[in-house]
Every structure is written in structure tokens, then in C-alpha cells.
């Protein structure tokens, strides 16, 4: 009987979370991570969506709090008076006798951040705000896919910015030199593809450099690519100032390309700085890269090297060559991004290029390094960038606060992806404990 007596209470004890063992907690965390790692595309979208909502909820309160800390003449947002009391105890923070005013209206802020990016689509589908969104998206697709390709090969290319700058400057200079030879529609048909090719080659070479350093000199690509960003920016500044400077301008920029050497804007007005052709090209490139990765022998080599370098070596993949090739491809894509920036947005090269290359890293991580997913992630970024401008212009909310809200959104959306990557890493360690278990599973499923 003593047996039953002790056995009884012990049963429920097992479920007591207070007793939660380290192994148990660790186990459930590992389980959760590996589930996340296996999440399908649909699940991932759902996860990202909920993260987005959560970030908005938190941002909502941040805007309110910031609004309380500022002084202003009229409240942009106010809560009606509310008194909650439980007998003699008053619930301090949850009750206020008079209406409470806030200097910033969070609903308005988010409304403008998200919807502002699209402008008034119903009245004017070609409005400038929407054009900005699409133009940002287009360039971010290139840099995002560039980072994704390198990621798939197991190389962390942080040098997208430098490759983009090199591609942009080369395109601006070379196309300007060649442009006088041609004109009109023929000029556009030849010069635009030629400019893209120049950007691809320049960016590709600039990407292959750290690739070769990694493959043949064992230099860590994270460090070399970061440093080469500075080199690219500084050299571009020097070349623009001292060699290719537009003599008619006070700004540090090269001379403007003739309009026939630029992307035809087609639908949008010329000064919108966006071309649906370039956007279509960006999407096509993303799809082509996805196809290359999954359907070709080269893509197989790249993915194998990225996932398991030892197995790739066993499978006859030349590791060094694959690293150089994927870095060259990655650099070429970023370089094309730079060419598009010049041919579509600027019409010349200007120093102080926005951080497209760095944003490309976030775009790629948001997309789980999936080239096609990078299109969606780039659109989110485009919306946020263009939307922030609307918030800046249309409300009294300081730009720093808008930056916080943007960062918060990216942080939350990226977090599941971040955990997913961690999950993969942990999963590499985990099979040891799974192995024994899964073995029997072979028998079970028969």
C-alpha cells in the first residue's frame, strides 16, 4: 500500500511547472526552435504577419508615451476620463479623472506610415508617394537577392553596399562616355542593357575579390566585405570629386546622362524616378536566381556548400571555386542594383548613396534567404521608407521616433527568422538525442 501512497501524489507532481527541470525547459525550447526551422512558407507568412501586428501594438504605446513626454498646445489624441475604483483602493495607472491628452496620435502615425506609402491610389494610381515606394522596392530586391545568394552558399556578404556603389559609379561613368555615340530609341535599347551589364561586371568583380580572399587566403569574408564597403565609398568620393565631377554643379556628382540613356519610365511620369520595366526586371531576376539555385547543377553545388561544406567536398564540389562564383554573382546582383539606381532614379552618380546594400541584408534575412521571398520583404521595406517620409511631412512626430517604429517593425518581423536560423544551428546539435528516437520511427511508419 505504501507503494500506491507515494506513487499517487507523484503523478501530478510531474506536471508541476515549478518543478520544470532544466532539461525539460531546454527540450521544449529546442523543440520550438526546430519547429520554427521547419515552418512552411505559409506558416512563415503567418508568423511574420503576427509579428507585424505585435510590433504595431508595442509601437502604439511608444508613440503614446512619447506624446505624453512632449509639450504641445493641442492634444493630437485624447482618452476620455475614466475612473475605476475597487472600494477604497484606486487603481492609479488605470484611472484618470480628467481626459488625458497626447501630443502624437498613434493611429494617425501608423495610418500614414503604411497607407501613406501608397498615396491615394484610387484617385491617382501614379502618385509620387507610390512611385517612391516602388523605386525603393526595386533596388532593394536586387541587394536583397544578392545577399540571399551568398547566404545560400554559406558566405555572409556584408559588402552589398560597396558592390552597389562600385556598380553605380561604373555605370554612370561608362554609359556617359558611350552615350554620345547613340541616340533615340536605339540608344535606350542599347545603353540601358549595356549600363546594367557594366554594373554587373563591376559589382561582380568587386564581390569576387573578397570571395577569392576567403577561398584562397582564408580571410574572413565578414571583415573583408565590411572593410571593402569603406574602400568603395571613399574611392567613389575621390573619383567623383576629382575626376568625374560635373563642373556645372556644386554637389558632388557626375554629369547627367542623356534621357535616352536612362530607364524609360513608361507608365509613371518621368520625374517620378521609377520604371515598371526595372521592377519587372528585379522580379524576373529574383525568380531566375531561385530557379538557378533549385534546378541547376550549379545551384546544387552552391546550396550544398552552404549547408554542409564537407558533404559538398565529398560530392566533388570545388569549395574555393564555389565561394568565388557565388560572391561574384552576389556582387553582380548588387552592382545591377547600383546600375538601376543610376539609370532609373538619379540619372548620374551622386555620393551619399542610401544604405541599400545594408538594408539588403535585412531584406534577405526577413525573406529567409529565399530569393522570391526577397521581393515581398523588399516591398515591406519600400513601404516603410516611403511611409516614413509621409509621416515626417504630415505630422509633428519627430523623424527619430519614426525611425524607432520602423526599426521595431523590422526587429519583430525578423525575429522569427532569426530564431529559425538559430533553430537550424541548434538542430545540428540536436539530432544526437533525436537519433535514437527516430530510428524506431522507421519501424513505426511501415
Amino acid at each position, binding site marked *: 500500500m505504501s507503494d500506491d501512497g507515494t506513487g499517487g501524489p507523484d503523478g501530478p507532481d510531474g506536471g508541476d511547472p515549478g518543478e520544470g527541470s532544466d532539461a525539460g525547459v531546454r527540450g521544449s525550447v529546442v523543440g520550438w526552435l526546430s519547429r520554427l526551422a521547419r515552418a512552411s512558407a505559409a506558416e512563415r507568412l503567418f508568423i511574420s504577419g503576427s509579428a507585424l501586428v505585435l510590433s504595431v501594438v508595442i509601437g502604439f504605446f511608444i508613440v503614446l508615451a512619447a506624446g505624453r513626454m512632449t509639450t504641445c498646445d493641442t492634444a493630437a489624441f485624447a482618452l476620455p476620463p475614466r475612473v475605476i475604483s475597487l472600494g477604497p483602493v484606486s487603481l492609479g495607472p488605470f484611472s484618470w479623472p480628467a481626459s488625458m491628452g497626447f501630443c502624437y496620435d498613434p493611429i494617425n502615425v501608423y495610418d500614414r506610415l503604411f497607407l501613406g506609402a501608397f498615396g491615394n491610389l484610387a484617385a491617382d494610381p501614379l502618385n509620387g508617394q507610390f512611385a517612391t515606394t516602388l523605386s525603393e522596392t526595386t533596388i532593394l530586391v536586387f541587394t536583397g537577392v544578392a545577399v540571399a545568394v551568398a547566404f545560400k552558399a554559406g558566405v555572409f556578404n556584408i559588402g552589398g553596399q560597396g558592390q552597389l556603389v562600385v556598380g553605380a559609379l561604373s555605370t554612370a561613368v561608362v554609359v556617359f562616355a558611350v552615350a554620345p555615340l547613340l541616340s533615340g530609341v536605339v540608344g535606350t535599347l542599347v545603353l540601358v542593357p549595356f549600363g546594367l551589364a557594366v554594373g554587373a561586371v563591376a559589382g561582380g568583380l568587386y564581390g569576387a575579390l573578397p570571395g577569392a580572399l576567403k577561398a584562397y587566403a582564408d580571410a574572413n569574408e565578414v571583415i573583408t566585405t565590411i572593410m571593402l564597403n569603406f574602400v568603395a565609398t571613399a574611392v567613389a568620393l575621390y573619383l567623383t570629386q576629382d575626376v568625374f565631377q560635373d563642373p556645372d554643379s556644386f554637389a558632388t556628382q557626375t554629369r547627367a546622362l542623356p534621357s535616352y540613356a536612362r530607364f524609360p519610365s513608361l507608365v509613371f511620369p518621368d520625374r517620378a524616378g521609377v520604371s515598371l520595366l526595372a521592377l519587372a526586371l528585379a522580379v524576373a531576376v529574383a525568380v531566375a536566381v531561385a530557379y538557378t539555385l533549385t534546378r541547376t547543377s550549379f545551384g546544387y553545388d552552391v546550396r550544398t556548400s552552404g*549547408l554542409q561544406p564537407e558533404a559538398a567536398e565529398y560530392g*566533388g564540389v570545388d569549395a574555393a571555386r564555389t565561394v568565388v562564383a557565388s560572391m561574384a554573382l552576389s556582387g553582380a546582383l548588387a552592382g545591377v542594383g547600383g546600375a538601376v539606381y543610376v539609370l532609373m532614379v538619379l540619372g548620374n552618380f551622386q555620393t551619399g548613396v542610401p544604405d541599400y546594400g545594408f538594408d539588403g541584408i535585412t531584406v534577405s534575412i526577413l525573406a529567409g534567404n529565399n530569393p522570391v521571398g526577397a521581393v515581398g520583404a523588399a516591398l515591406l521595406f519600400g513601404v516603410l521608407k516611403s511611409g516614413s517620409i509621409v509621416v515626417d511631412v504630415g505630422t509633428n512626430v519627430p523623424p527619430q521616433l519614426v525611425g524607432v517604429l520602423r526599426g521595431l517593425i523590422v526587429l519583430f518581423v525578423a525575429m522569427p527568422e532569426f530564431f529559425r536560423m538559430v533553430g537550424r544551428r541548434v538542430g545540428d546539435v540536436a539530432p544526437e538525442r533525436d537519433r*535514437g528516437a527516430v*530510428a524506431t520511427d522507421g519501424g513505426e*511508419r511501415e
Partner: protein
Amino acid sequence: MSEAVRLDGITKRFPGVVANDDVTLSVERGTVHALLGENGAGKTTLMNVLYGLFPPTEGDVYVDGEGLERDDGGGYVGSPERFDSPRDAIDAGVGMIHQHFMLVDPMTVAENITLGNEPRKWGGLAVDRAAAREAVVDLSERYGFDVDPDATVADVSVGVQQRVEILKALYRGADVLILDEPTAVLTPQEVADLFEVLEELTAQGKTVIFITHKLGEALDAADEVTVLRDGRNVGSVRTADTSREELAELMVGREVMLESDYEPATPGDPVLRAEGVTASDERGVVAVDDVSFTVREGEVFGVAGVDGNGQSELVEVLTGLRDHESGRVELRGRDVTDASRRDRARAGMAYVPEDRQERGLVMEFDLTENGILGSQHDEPFARSGRVDWDRADDHAERVVEEFDVRPPDTGAEARSLSGGNQQKFIVGREFARDPACIVASHPTRGVDIGSTEFIHDRIIDLRDEGKAVLLVSSKLDEVRGLSDRLAVMYRGRLVDVVDPDAVTEEQLGLLMAGEEPDDVPSLRGGADDAADPPEESGGTDAGRTDGVAGDGGDRE
């Protein structure tokens, strides 16, 4: 006699899988108990439950190193254990020695043994090294261990490291010792030493449970054997009352041919030839030292040796994964010394790698994708740079079917398969290349008896089809049973090439340990190899063997 350990109806479920299904195990105090079973039978999971790594889903664990007491009704006095972590299990007197040792290499034996429970002085501020050393000396004397407490762990042999692990458990007060596959890394001589140690331990009242899938060891070392199959206890027998055949049948669930007699080989032309191959390991130390041999059509050339004597490096040089320092490798008369791995594969070399999870498979790829690893640029799977996934899937399907890979789902990720099934898939893929030469490194490591038998038969089939097979294995039964000629590797050198049918296990063990036994049926310099230039003079061989023996002597 009383029980030291009682596992009562243990069920351990993982998501979607039952690893242990209502297993009851009782271990007498002061005995050696073998837990026998195929891969994935649930042996290690069960022991991890006992060691507190996993809580059981159902069932109770009772442990008492002094023997469990029962009341009049047969129930146990005292409550079942509830281990939340190995720490609790250690406190209850359970110690586990894992397959991979958990020792700190640069520290001394005594430091390793006392690590985490060091005697202290100066009010706990400093480790009392003298007391620690003394405690270790006392312990090793009590149990008759021959261990130098001041030696650095990195410098002692694997067998001694294992003893250090055992001493560590004893130092922490273990009465019940669990050993997970303790013999996997040992030479035959070290295995014999280990079994003596176990005997001494049980004589002094300790209880030992050891996990193994080797029948012979269970019979040799244990007093009682419990066989697990598919997570269930299919029987516990006293070793005195059983036989290899009975145990094998319990393990596999059907009758097994333990010793296959294969027809002798009819060797033809040389296919794979190594001449004076020398190569270094990652640390730059010479790992393969002037190795020469020839493998002919229609023969199995075995390479035996304790792991870590240069076999892995030799195989990597032959297959093109490692740079050599000097020497030549020829494949079908062609010099492939500097050819890439892909070139060698195209020239007809299949390769079953030693490490299936690092090299042989991409764990995140499914079987279809893994099925073309190594052929991703070749017909019929690739055409003008594009992969034909339909063909690849058909191919994977065939391999899965022929080699009985479970689950038979080509869409399953490689990581979801058990080790044995992963291995079967790799072997199937490589054998399907229709190669001229197969380099198989530990082709049945971690594979259960039934599948091992199948893989062995296939190797012999390929041999009989006229392929050249280079077989590297640390399983003596395997290399002896399959090889037509057997080379022994020790410290990077081929110390001898012997007739596997005539050599005794003792002689092999001595050769593997770098000794020079008498009357070895050596094939070196004999008529068999007369045609091979590097083996023309028996004199060099003798000198070489001497050199190695002297080498071994230096170490002691």
C-alpha cells in the same frame, strides 16, 4: 541477491515516436548487465532515462547501490526516483560513461577525475591538489586500475582515458555504472583489459550496465543480457544459459546467418594502386607514412587498425579529399594523384565515407537531393547544367527500395532517418554508380545485424562482378570475413598484409597495437604480390616493421 536498479514499465515518447515501450529491467547488485540491441532499439534512451537526461513518459525508476529492499508484499520500500538531471542521478549513485569521453585534454588524470568536486583548502579558495591526487591514487589502487594520476589526458591511450572516465564516476560515488558502447574505440587487448576492470568492480559490489550491439561482448563480459528490440524488452537471459544464435535471433527477430562463408576471390588486373603515399593530418603530423598497395579486380582488400592510425587520412588521399605529400595513386592504370574528387568519381571510383552525417549526406536535403550527391553534374541526372529532378527521384526511389531504407519516402530529409538507414542509403547510392572500384570506409558502422548482413552480401556481389573493393573497418569480424587480403595499419604505416583466413585474432590484435607477433601468415613479398614493384623486396618490409615496433616501444 538483491536488485540495484529496477526500471518499472518505462515508456519514453518523443513527439511522434515511442523510443521505449513499457520496458522493465532489473539489474542484480554486483553483476555486469549487458543491454543488447540493434541501432535505434532504444538502449541509449533507456539509459538516459536512468541517468536523468530524459524524464520517462511513464514508469518508475528505482535505484539503490546497496540493493533495493522489498516489503513482505513484494513492493519496494521507498519511493521511485525522480531525476531531473544527471546531477540527481549522480547523487543517487548512478554514473554514466558516454561513448565520447568528456575529458579535458590538457589537464592531468587527477584533475579530470576530481573536476567539479575538487577537495579544497584555504576556506574553499584553492584546490587542494595533494589531496586530490591522493584520493585518485587511493581509488585506483582499491580497484586495481593502472593509471598515472599525473599524466596529461591528451598523452594517454584511449583505453586509459576510458578508465579515467570510470574513476571519475567512482570518485563521485557511483555504485551503478552505465557504459555506452564502451568497446567501440578500443583495441582487442584494451577490450580484454576493460572486461577485467569490470570484473574487479563487480567483485567489490559495484553494478555495471553496458550498452552494446555486439553479441560476443555481451556474452563475454556480462552475467545477464537484456535484449531490446523496437523499444521493447524482448527478453532477459543469463549468459550461461544462452548462445550467440539465440541472442541474435532475439535482437533481429528472425534467424540470422552469423558467419557467412564466401567463395574465394579470383583477382584480375590491378585497379587501384597506391605507391609510397604520404600525407599529414590537420595538425600537420604525418598520418599516412609511405603506404603502398594494390587492389585488383574481383578482390576485397581490407585495411584493419584501431581508429586514428591513419586509415581515414589514407582513404581521403585515395578519394581526392586530402592533399598528399608524396607518392602516387593510380586508378585503372591512370595516374590520378592530382585529380579532383569529381574526376576520380567519373573515372569509376565510388566512395562510402566514414562520416555519413558530415560528408555522406546533406542533412537538410531530402533523399532525392541526396541521391545525386556526387553526380549532380553528370548524365543522366544533369543535362546542360540543369538537374532532372524526376530522374533523380526515380533513382532515389530505386536505392530506397533495393536497400530497404526506412521510411521508404524519398521526400524525407536525411536528418530524419536513423543512422543505420542513412548508411544504407549512402551504400546504395555509391554501389549504384556501377564503379570499377569502391572505397568503403566503415560501411556498416552503426548498422544493425540484418542490414550489415545485406551490405556484406552486396560487397561480395560487387567483388564477384569484378570490381575492386578497398574495405576499411575497425570491426575485426568484418574485415576478416570479407577481405581476400588484409592489411594492418598502425601509426600511418601498413605494418603487414596478411591472409585473413590464416591469421588469428590475437595476432591481428598485436599487429594493430604495433607489436610484432610470431608466425604471422604474411602475404608480403610472397608470390601473390610479386608483380607489384613497391613490394618487391621483403627486406624493406622487415625493416619497416622493426621501425614501427621500436616506435611503439618508445612510447612506453
